[in-house]
């Protein structure tokens, strides 16, 4: 199975079978015939799309005669390494409940390091113990996430209590200036954002209790700092290790990781920070001048417009896959398929769950992202028994002036795209970053560089990501209407520090009466501080 043609043939047949299974399963869905959109329609549509894509791929591969690219499958020991690593990971998950998270973590990390490199016994033990401690302190004690504790539960209460007092003492000593809080917020936000799956919204939500303990002004500044820090942290891992922290940094992976492999991780990280900063500045300028005008445009968006916008986003991304259009379509239908599982969002009826209780709650897209990027990235590296993620030496910590100038256009364009799309409630940053990347690729004179480490390909999604959040402040300040989960959490935090919703709604009456509302401006001013 080393030939691309045979693999495509097999994959096509398999995917077509999958589509057929979905169609069969969809025919079992019971539902009201009276509904506008019968519950079977979408599963049927996605099933037929999968079937057609698979058949198309198989037929195309069958009829293809020409130069046949080879697929680099791993050697036997590569398969063994992948298998053992998967087994370790499965074991990790399986024993997490009885043994508790910290102990399991230590065992897993030490075991996996030892398996991959027998000489690093000391490093394995240290890393195992270290990660167990970090998991215990950072996630269980400090952030109070409810991981299974196992036998550690009772022991920890008594022995480690004094340590916590010491840590609390440090925390007290640090409450001096707002700048310091912002610094802390940025740092903690970045650390949290580095974890895949914990994006800005979850980051703020987890750290919200901390921000309410300090004076209101410091609290607001710190929250904003956490927000930006978490977004930046997500792109950091996207660039350095090809793991997007959340959906919106997926486009950053494409060129950012490529740059990192060429030894230019520093430049990619630098341009990402600069582009975010420029887009944030432009976005705030836009917010100050256009807020009252634009708020009304955002209200003209009804469900049909949202559907069309998202449909366009999807089609753009499929057509972005260039020559592999069928494969792009198949990938799309697998994504749709995965999220069809669970409940119908309007009626709540279960579908495609095959009677499995866990499937009733649906599949969360964040675990899909984590699996697709982080886990598969590790598997790719395990297969090669790589000593490092990429072998090149680093050169150029900072982007050069020429590169920054080259990105100027990308920064301005992506700020515009991000800001205007950010005005729309419910428009996820994921859509805007994908669209910004696509636009940049189409505008560029050197589109062939995209996907091979083009610095504009990093600047565009990063800028759009930041500008989207600036744009989101328009409806937030004008109507008290958050455009996304992150802003909703932020609004909650703002309200708890005295930014009252009443002030937001008084703004609403003024701005709808057509006057350029002073309250709206005061809202924007507070966003500058």
């Amino acid at each position: 199975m080393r030939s691309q043609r045979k693999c495509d043939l097999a994959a096509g047949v398999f995917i077509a079978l999958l589509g057929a299974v979905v169609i069969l399963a969809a025919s079992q869905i019971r539902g009201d015939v009276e509904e506008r959109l019968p519950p079977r329609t979408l599963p049927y549509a996605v099933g037929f799309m999968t079937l057609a894509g698979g058949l198309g791929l198989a037929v195309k591969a069958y009829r293809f005669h020409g130069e046949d690219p080879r697929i680099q499958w791993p050697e036997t020991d590569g398969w063994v390494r992948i298998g053992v690593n998967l087994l370790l990971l499965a074991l990790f998950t399986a024993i997490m409940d009885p043994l508790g998270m910290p102990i399991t973590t230590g065992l897993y990390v030490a075991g996996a390091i030892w398996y991959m490199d027998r000489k690093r016994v000391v490093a394995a033990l240290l890393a195992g113990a270290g990660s167990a401690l970090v998991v215990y302190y950072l996630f269980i004690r400090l952030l109070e996430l409810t991981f299974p504790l196992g036998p550690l539960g009772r022991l920890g209460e008594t022995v480690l209590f004094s340590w916590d007092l010491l840590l609390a003492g440090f925390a007290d000593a640090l409450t001096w200036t707002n700048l310091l809080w912002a610094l802390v917020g940025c740092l903690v936000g970045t650390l949290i954002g580095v974890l895949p799956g914990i994006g800005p919204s979850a980051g703020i939500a987890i750290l919200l209790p901390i921000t309410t303990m300090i004076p209101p002004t410091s609290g607001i500044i710190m929250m904003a700092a956490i927000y930006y820090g978490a977004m930046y942290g997500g792109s950091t891992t996207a660039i350095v290790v090809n793991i997007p922290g959340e959906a919106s940094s997926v486009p950053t992976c494409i060129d950012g990781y490529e740059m990192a492999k060429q030894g230019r991780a520093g430049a990619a990280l630098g341009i990402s920070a600069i582009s975010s900063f420029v887009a944030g500045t432009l976005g705030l300028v836009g917010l100050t001048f256009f807020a009252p005008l634009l708020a009304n445009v955002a209200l003209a968006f009804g469900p049909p417009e949202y559907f069309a916008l998202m449909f366009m986003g999807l089609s753009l991304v499929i057509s972005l896959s260039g020559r592999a259009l069928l494969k792009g379509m198949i990938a799309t239908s697998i994504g749709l398929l995965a999220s069809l599982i669970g409940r119908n969002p309007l009626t709540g009826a279960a579908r495609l769950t095959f009677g499995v209780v866990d499937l009733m709650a649906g599949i969360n897209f964040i675990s899909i992202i984590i699996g697709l990027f982080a886990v598969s990235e590790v598997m790719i590296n395990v297969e090669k028994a790589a000593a490092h993620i990429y072998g090149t030496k680093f050169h150029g910590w900072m982007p050069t002036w020429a590169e920054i100038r080259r990105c100027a256009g990308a920064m301005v364009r992506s700020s515009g795209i991000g800001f205007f799309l950010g005005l729309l409630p419910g428009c996820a940053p994921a859509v805007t970053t994908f669209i910004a990347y696509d636009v940049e690729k189409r505008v560029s004179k050197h589109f062939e560089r995209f996907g091979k480490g083009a610095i504009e390909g990093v600047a565009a999604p990063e800028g759009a990501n930041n500008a989207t959040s600036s744009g989101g402040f328009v409806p937030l300040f004008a109507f008290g209407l958050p455009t996304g989960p992150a802003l909703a959490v932020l609004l909650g935090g703002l309200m708890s520090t005295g930014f009252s919703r009443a002030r937001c709604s008084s703004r609403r009456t003024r701005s709808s009466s057509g006057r350029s509302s002073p309250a709206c401006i005061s809202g924007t001013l507070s966003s500058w501080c």
Partner: protein
Amino acid sequence: MYIGNVILLVLNLPLVGFWARIALIPFPILGPLIILCSVIGAYSIRFMLFDVWVALLFGVVGYLLRKLHFPVAPLVLASVLSQMLETSLQQSLLISQGSWLIFFNRPIAGFFMALAIASIARGIWLQVRSHAPEVAIDDADE
């Protein structure tokens, strides 16, 4: 907000070197740490082990997709948007009483739909003209 923005730039430009150095950690150590971060991330979504198993399954799916040169980005975007897409589709059809024309006779929606159809049509046109095998050019791998 703006202070946060400035501080992030001031803080992170010097730290760029530090973050980039993460990649210099030998893989046998970095790999398990990446997996650990992934497991924590997946588990803390809803505090369900089920989500970790899903991440594991999609790890295998992602590996195969990348080996077979499938683009991964559409899968991600589709899974993110699917719920919103379906909700707004159902709401639109309620508004229009079942007519699909609602997506074409409203100016903004019509504009987006036209763009979408044009980009797909262009893709199919390019596809028909070239006889190359299906290999994603945007694949982050290789």
